């Protein structure tokens, strides 16, 4: 049985009923177990609630349960006959932008929650901006709590129009609105009884049918080398194997490639795996490559399409989300990790700060602090073979690491 994998992120606050939507999705697709339900029912009862609070399923840490808030990204898993799903559940509060960035970074799709009574809120705009910034092309607009507006079709249509007007300039490939009442189970997994006028797909049907994992397969070949192995060491037939994962594109034996940053060209001699050699392979596969020529390649180098090579530069512009509690100090050297390469670098001129509520650019901010998103220029000590994040997520992204504390202090998206 061939089942695909879809990774998605849910954005919204507890007030939008986000946890209830996830709870309903898991519950109705039978991914919540009796003992989990019993445990959260007991906890809910202790707190004087009459029903099981499904939010408790995703609030995994003691501090979260004590304070009734979500602090960190939680990952949940469920599967149907068609697809396996990985859900990144992220908190909606303003101060947790970095968690949303984390959750969105690996997601194929985002569900943006809206309360039918409240419509567009500043956080709805913020979530949509962040999701688009992180390169997610498909959004489900989940208009929840339809039961509280008497399942009114006109309300749904008005809220859809408002969101679509706002989202048009963001350039999503698809915005799929679904009306629902997660509390009553309408249009999440089951169709329910309240929304007979809605003829579209349920939330789960949307999740089962949207394209997954396709864009990277159609981009040019990018293969960052993780490790170099000596194969058949000590024999006359000794050769080097380059271990890595195909981050984008496809490759086949005989394909012409360029090794960067050296700029040497060669061709694929073989594609090896534990299960035997392959004639071709595609984005997402971990393989071992051998080349037709003896080339000096080490970890951090990139094997790329010769016809469509990436840029290879010692300076670049990027949007950066600052994670650290300590503000950016432009005088300090940082480590920049891109693909499998780690280089020393510096953050140069900061052009503007992005207001994530409005997408407005605030020119030349005097400081960059936690959760800020800025456009800046970067200089690195050795060239990086990169693409723009918009055209290639895996090869257009990097993290900043503090040389002294070793903390991950920022995430960047190349322009």
């Amino acid at each position, binding site marked *: 049985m061939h089942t695909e994998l879809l990774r998605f992120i849910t954005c919204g606050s507890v007030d939008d009923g986000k946890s209830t939507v996830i709870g309903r999705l898991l519950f109705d697709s039978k991914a919540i177990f009796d003992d989990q339900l019993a445990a959260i029912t007991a906890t809910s009862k202790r707190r004087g609630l009459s029903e099981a609070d499904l939010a408790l399923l995703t609030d995994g840490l003691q*501090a979260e349960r004590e304070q009734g808030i979500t602090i960190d990204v939680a990952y949940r898993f469920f599967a149907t006959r068609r697809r396996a799903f990985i859900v990144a559940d992220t908190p909606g509060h303003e101060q947790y932008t970095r968690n949303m*960035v984390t959750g969105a970074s690996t997601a194929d799709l985002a569900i943006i929650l809206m309360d039918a009574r409240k419509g567009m809120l500043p956080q709805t705009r913020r979530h949509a901006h962040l999701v688009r910034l992180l390169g997610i092309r498909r959004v489900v607009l989940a208009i929840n709590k339809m039961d509280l507006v008497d399942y009114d079709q006109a309300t749904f249509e008005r809220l859809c129009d408002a969101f679509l007007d706002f989202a048009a300039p963001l350039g999503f490939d698809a915005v799929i609105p679904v009306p629902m009442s997660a509390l009553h189970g309408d249009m999440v997994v089951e169709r329910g009884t309240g929304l007979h006028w809605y003829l579209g797909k349920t939330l789960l049907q949307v999740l089962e049918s949207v394209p997954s994992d*396709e864009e990277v397969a159609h981009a040019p070949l990018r293969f960052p080398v*993780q490790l170099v*192995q000596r194969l058949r060491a000590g024999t006359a037939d000794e050769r080097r194997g380059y271990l*890595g994962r195909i981050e984008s594109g496809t490759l086949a034996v005989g394909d012409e490639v360029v090794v960067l940053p050296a700029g040497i060209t060669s061709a694929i001699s073989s594609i090896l795996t534990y299960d035997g050699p392959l004639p071709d392979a595609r984005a997402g596969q971990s393989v071992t490559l051998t080349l037709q020529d003896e080339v000096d390649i080490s970890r951090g180098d990139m094997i790329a399409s010769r016809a469509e090579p990436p840029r290879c530069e010692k300076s670049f512009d990027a949007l950066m989300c600052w994670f650290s509690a300590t503000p950016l100090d432009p005088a300090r050297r940082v480590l920049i990790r891109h693909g499998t390469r780690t280089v020393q670098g510096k953050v140069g001129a900061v052009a503007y700060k992005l207001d994530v509520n409005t997408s407005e650019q605030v020119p030349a901010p005097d400081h960059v602090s936690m959760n800020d998103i800025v456009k800046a220029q970067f200089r690195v000590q050795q060239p990086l073979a990169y693409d723009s994040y918009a055209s290639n997520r895996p090869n257009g992204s*990097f993290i900043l690491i503090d040389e002294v504390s070793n903390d991950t202090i920022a995430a960047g998206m190349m322009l």
Partner: protein
Amino acid sequence: MSSHHSAEVVDLHPHRAGRTEPLDHLDRLESEAIHIMREVAAECRNPALLFSGGKDSIVMLRLAEKAFRPNAFPFPLLHIDTGHNFPEVIAFRDARVAELGERLIVRSVEDSIRQGRARVKDASASRNALQAVTLVDAINEFQFDACLGGARRDEEKARAKERIFSFRDEFGVWDPKNQRPEIWNLYNARVHPGENLRVFPISNWTELDVWSYIGRERLAVPEIYYAHVRPVVRRGAQLVPVTELTPPLAGEVVEQVSVRFRTVGDITCTCPVSSTAATVAAIIAETAVTSITERGATRMDDQTSDASMELRKKQGYF
């Protein structure tokens, strides 16, 4: 390994994905895990892979083969032996290590107790939590800067929030509120001397994925994972195996029941479930429709409070 069941093949996975077919979800999970193991081999100075003989670590060994064969693994295997293991599992562990020709280091909780490093109420008390002491001692003894483990996010709610590269300070402590952001697949493996990482390549796998993979790869697992008749007593909702370490309490009736284990940890806190599943296919069928979580059914030590696992992890546990 003729003494063990060879896994019944459920889905032979007839096509290996070529350039036109999207990858199957197990292929994607496998590839992610291989990528993570190779990152550890490249970025860490002195890693180890935790191998207990349990199903998750059996999958980890196959993933290590996929990541590094035909060469040897770039790390030794490490088992923290509670001294309360099922004998079938230890026999399996040793047979599998011999078959792979890799190096296994065993450090035992028994020794930690003898040396006064770990304290127990009595000989039959659960040693699950004590593993943390022995593990942290072993990490210090060998100066490991990373331990690869087979923990999964679907197992438990604290694990659901843990990073794939999970940072531990010099005391082996996990600080859930101060985790490194983990974005895209760019893992930060940098640590100072004395600090270390726990790395979980199969974080995103579920129990069902693990069994599907065991079936697809035809991996042998210890016999007690398959249905067998064993003396048990019923205690609450759980079936408690009757062993020297876990004798029946006064008034309990010993029954012979067909059971299998979903996890094979410390005997004193691991319970089997009622089952007649004698093949991987049958286990997958049961797992797909089960209504109780893996740990809920089988672990007495996770039942004590909402935060049992989180507290153990803060003390250095896996």
